[in-house]
């Protein structure tokens, strides 16, 4: 079965510093990987995806993610964090055994301090 792991429950970073939110995956075949962000009392917002092509994927709000096949990772990055980036971030993988189902990680809370 496809799965993703987010090893950190929380990531703390100072505003202006680079941020990384980690995600590793386990899939059979080619992975379809996604990042979503969730602000308090809101739904999930799609940030970016990797299906094929360049290993560095650029998404919304200045976020990018690097696909690394050898390390089976898909870490989310941003060069300069904003306080407004503080939110819950979910990594997800498309379940090839199911109908386009997304399998979500457990989420990582990002806290950006002023």
């Amino acid at each position, binding site marked *: 079965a496809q799965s993703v792991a987010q090893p950190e429950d929380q990531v703390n970073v100072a505003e202006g510093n680079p941020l990384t939110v980690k995600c590793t995956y386990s899939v059979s075949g080619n992975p379809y990987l*996604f990042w979503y962000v969730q602000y308090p*009392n809101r*739904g*999930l*917002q799609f940030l970016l*995806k990797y299906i094929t092509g360049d290993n560095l994927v650029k998404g919304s709000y200045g976020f990018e993610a690097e696909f690394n096949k050898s390390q089976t990772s898909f870490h989310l990055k941003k060069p300069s964090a904003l306080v407004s980036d503080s939110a819950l971030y979910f990594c997800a993988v498309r379940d090839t055994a199911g*109908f*386009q189902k997304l399998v*979500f990680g457990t989420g990582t809370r990002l806290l950006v301090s002023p």
Partner: protein
Amino acid sequence: DAMVIQNPRYQVTQFGKPVTLSCSQTLNHNVMYWYQQKSSQAPKLLFHYYDKDFNNEADTPDNFQSRRPNTSFCFLDIRSPGLGDAAMYLCATSSKGQGSGYEQYFGPGTRLTVT
């Protein structure tokens, strides 16, 4: 803007009193999903519709039902809510077919409180 809309945003119901949550979309997507999310945990898929075909997850309780009368609307019915059903309920849509990006687009959610 094309979007996924959920009403109401907040719903309070009594223990055992049926409740219906609604979702509509202007994206013209052929797949609609219902998720349950508790306490900042990962969303848990309850079921999805591919056009009119209903697909229930194996571990979704019978207490949860869904209806999709047309492409734009989908409803979540909780027949006898228990205290454990208090959660955020998320509706999402996606497009299945050639050229699909596979990403899902989520509504803002309905927070259900059971008293």
